[in-house]
């Protein structure tokens, strides 16, 4: 059986347009072009994420997400809340290696600088490659020498120099409140910034308005982070060997929009592409040690903490929130930061495991807590972790007004509720809920108790025994019994059901099945149903019934006891594609060394074939892969792809897609080939039977489809019909000749 050829290759002019679009996008990413890009380009990029946090003088924080590929080309990503959530939350993005598929957004009129914005269609985590980053991932501990270079850059139209170089050298010194001294104390001497330096002032090539302007019309100045990073490091490059540093503070002589900014950036300097910790500082940023410490904290990968209220900066227990109350300003370096909280210190690997108390289920024990500002020499703990649901937990820490913590609200035990995935994972537990996370409601003092869920978890602050200042009794009873959630499949369709939090992950094929998992009482569970496409057959999700009802694909409910839910799927008569799905691309050239490179395959043809997939890539050099992902090809070897379209939900008729092959290293990339689906409705059971019984024949390609669905022996026969009935669940028609009759009537 031979498919009727139906391959459509873009004409030469259209291909040239696609190449031009790629050039335009890459030039935009290079930040130096002064024209307006108007071409929308489909991109598939693999690289590392950077989150840049913005901290304003007033108002809520900002954050921006960027992706830097392996050639230090940077894109600003427009991620949906669901995409961020699926990656573990904004606080867990920094340093993550991902592949992103999306399309470029047209630049705003007048926008001249800044990474190309990409509207993200899909994002997928990738395994980390060999470390070559000064800035580690969000999950890695931060240890040892962490020198920062401070670059002082003047906008070309502003000549002021707010502070001399010596100011910055002193600010990063080991003399209190110098930042080397500060970070040593905060990290228990596990990191230092010895070797930090300051250089400048340098003149930037452009005026401030080139870097700082309202490009999106929202009334707030936007910052061209990439242009500032490229230009400020560029003018200093002759004096600085960047690979010597873990972080770069870019100090500017005028404000940078709303905020002081901290996070990371990838630079190609001194022959090395490196992910650096990086901050962008306005004068009021480096005018206060606490602000700089806060932004460097973002550089180390820390998110914000806060009180349990809307205001991010209200907690004076943490340099990553309000930074301290700033009761006494340092005459030279302004407000000085307090310590960061135990959750953050643990996250950076600074609290040894044997200093973290995690109670056993059913236990009740009194322990000694040492103040968080110094590593204890005795048997005290620095931190208590009390898991209460899923991956969430409470922390308990003792604070006293000593060292850099001299500016905290008071001596007390402080608790935080930690829920990973939210932008501020750690939030102060404030008993009086009065909107102030620093007052007595947040300070747990002698004889006060915190309880959770009918005293299953209780923390009581005990009087000092004379040996230890802070004693805490932690009662942690056997966790509340879990309850079973049973999911039953109904209908003749195929589908899968998964849960968040994880537990349910099962599927059914054309028959009722039951799967179950246990969840804690009070857990908010979201079930997600997805019809399964088996070859040409598709199923439809018909809805939920039982303890969660509805027709939407997701269903959220609280675990209040034993729960039972049914998910129904119905198989749909398939539509049949009459077109060939074999496409070919020209060989790519210019890989250099190595001669094998990753290429990305994506569907850029719009919404109609968004589900186009590659059931098995086969190309002349061998290998396999999937759409919206990468695979390796050889320089000079043509690529052929056998596409397997997902036609679920598509109507009969024609649907087109443009399949694009992109390599960041090839001269003749991207390449695009248009494919067109020509879908027809599958025959009815009666039509199928009639064709077998000497009636009107079906289209040849339809016969082939039905044969492939059945026994694939090359012609249509009762075996194929049997398979068809089983697969589609075709029902009987009324009794009459030329129709179906069903036994038992």
């Amino acid at each position, binding site marked *: 059986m031979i498919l009727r050829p139906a391959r459509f290759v873009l004409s030469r002019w259209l291909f040239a347009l696609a190449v031009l679009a790629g050039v335009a996008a890459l030039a935009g990413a290079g930040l130096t072009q002064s024209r307006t890009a108007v071409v929308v380009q489909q991109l598939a990029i693999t690289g590392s994420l950077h989150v840049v946090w913005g901290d304003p003088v007033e108002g809520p924080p900002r954050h921006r997400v960027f992706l830097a590929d392996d050639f230090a080309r940077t894109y600003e990503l427009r991620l949906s809340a669901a995409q961020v959530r699926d990656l573990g939350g904004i606080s867990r993005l920094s340093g993550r290696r991902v592949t992103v598929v999306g399309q470029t957004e047209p630049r705003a009129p007048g926008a001249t600088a800044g990474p190309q914005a990409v509207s993200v269609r899909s994002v997928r985590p990738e395994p980390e490659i060999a470390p070559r980053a000064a800035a580690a991932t969000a999950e890695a501990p931060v240890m040892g020498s962490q020198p920062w270079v401070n670059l002082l850059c003047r906008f070309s139209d502003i000549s002021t120099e707010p502070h001399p170089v010596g100011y910055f050298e002193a600010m990063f010194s080991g003399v209190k409140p110098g930042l080397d001294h500060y970070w040593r104390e905060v990290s228990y001497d596990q990191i230092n910034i010895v070797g930090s330096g300051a250089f400048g002032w340098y003149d930037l090539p452009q005026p401030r308005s080139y870097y700082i302007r309202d490009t999106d019309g929202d009334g707030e100045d936007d910052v061209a982070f990439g242009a500032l990073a490229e230009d400020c490091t560029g003018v200093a490059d002759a004096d600085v060997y960047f690979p010597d540093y873990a972080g770069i503070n870019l100090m500017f002589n005028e404000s940078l929009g709303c905020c002081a900014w901290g996070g990371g950036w990838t630079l190609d300097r001194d022959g090395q592409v490196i992910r650096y910790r990086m901050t962008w500082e306005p004068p009021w940023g480096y005018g206060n040690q606490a602000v700089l410490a806060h932004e460097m904290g973002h550089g180390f990968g820390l998110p914000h903490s806060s009180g349990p209220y809307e205001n991010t900066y209200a907690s004076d227990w943490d340099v990553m929130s309000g930074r301290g109350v700033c009761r006494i300003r340092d005459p030279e370096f302004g407000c000085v930061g307090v310590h960061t909280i135990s959750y953050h210190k643990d996250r950076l690997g600074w609290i040894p495991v044997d200093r973290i108390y995690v109670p056993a289920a059913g236990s009740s024990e009194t322990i000694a807590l040492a103040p968080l500002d110094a590593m204890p020499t005795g048997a005290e703990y620095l931190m208590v972790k009390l898991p209460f649901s899923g991956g969430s937990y409470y922390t308990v820490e003792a604070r006293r007004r000593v060292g850099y913590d001299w500016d905290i609200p008071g001596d007390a035990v402080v608790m935080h509720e930690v829920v990973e995935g939210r932008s501020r994972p750690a939030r102060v537990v404030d008993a009086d809920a009065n909107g102030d996370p620093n007052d007595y409601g947040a300070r747990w003092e002698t004889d006060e108790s915190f309880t959770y869920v009918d005293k299953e978890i209780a923390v009581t602050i005990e009087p000092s025994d004379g040996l230890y200042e802070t004693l805490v009794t932690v009662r942690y009873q056997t966790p509340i019994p879990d309850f079973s959630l049973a999911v039953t499949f109904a209908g003749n369709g195929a589908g899968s059901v998964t849960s968040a939090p994880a537990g349910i992950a099962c599927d059914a094929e054309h028959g009722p099945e039951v799967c179950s998992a246990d969840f804690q009482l009070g857990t908010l569970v979201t079930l997600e149903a997805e019809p399964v496409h088996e070859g040409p057959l598709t199923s439809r999700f018909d809805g939920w019934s039982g303890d969660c009802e509805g027709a939407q694909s997701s269903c959220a409910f609280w675990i209040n006891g034993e729960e039972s839910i049914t998910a129904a799927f119905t198989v749909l008569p398939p539509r049949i594609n009459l077109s060939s799905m074999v496409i070919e691309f020209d060989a790519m050239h210019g890989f250099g060394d190595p001669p094998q490179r990753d290429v990305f395959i994506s569907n850029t043809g719009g919404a109609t074939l968004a589900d186009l997939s590659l059931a098995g890539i086969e190309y002349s050099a061998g290998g396999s892969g999937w759409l919206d992902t990468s695979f390796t090809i050889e320089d000079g070897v043509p690529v052929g792809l056998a596409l397997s379209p997902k036609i679920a939900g598509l109507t009969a008729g024609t649907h087109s897609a443009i399949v694009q092959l992109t390599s960041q290293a090839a001269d003749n990339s991207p390449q695009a080939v248009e494919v067109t689906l020509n879908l027809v409705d599958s025959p009815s059971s009666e039509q199928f039977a009639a064709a077998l019984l000497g009636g009107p024949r079906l289209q040849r390609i339809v016969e082939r489809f039905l044969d492939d669905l059945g*026994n694939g022996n090359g012609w249509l026969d009762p075996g194929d019909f049997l398979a068809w009935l089983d697969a589609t669940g075709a029902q009987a028609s009324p009794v009459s000749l030329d129709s179906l009759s069903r036994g038992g009537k």
Partner: protein
Amino acid sequence: MMRNDRLCFGLFRGLAILAVTAFAGCGDSTGPAVPQLDLVLVAPAEGDRAAAVTVVGEFTAVHAANGYRLFSREGNGSLKLLVIAEAGATFPSGAVVVATLEIAEGDDSSDYRSYVTEVASADYELKSARTYSTRLETRGR
């Protein structure tokens, strides 16, 4: 079974000896009211699930036997059937009635012929029909 008043009337007029029987048959509608033929499929072994059968002759109706589904097409003095055993079942080894055919009054059942043209196994493979046979039996015999 459908009641056939015209057939009952003829039986009362012509065959007095059968009148009681016919009366009983018409009255409670449990006996054959029209000439019917059982299509018997003879399988050499169990394990097959579909068979294409051609029956030569004119028919007024066709009904699937319990446990079977039928697709049929009539033309050129024959009836072509796809006989499908219900999901999870196969043809048993030996003879089994898979359908009942109604023929017109006065037709001679001996004029009817049937044969198997194709057989498929439960796993959809096409198999040889040579080892299969069929026969038509007058209903109630």
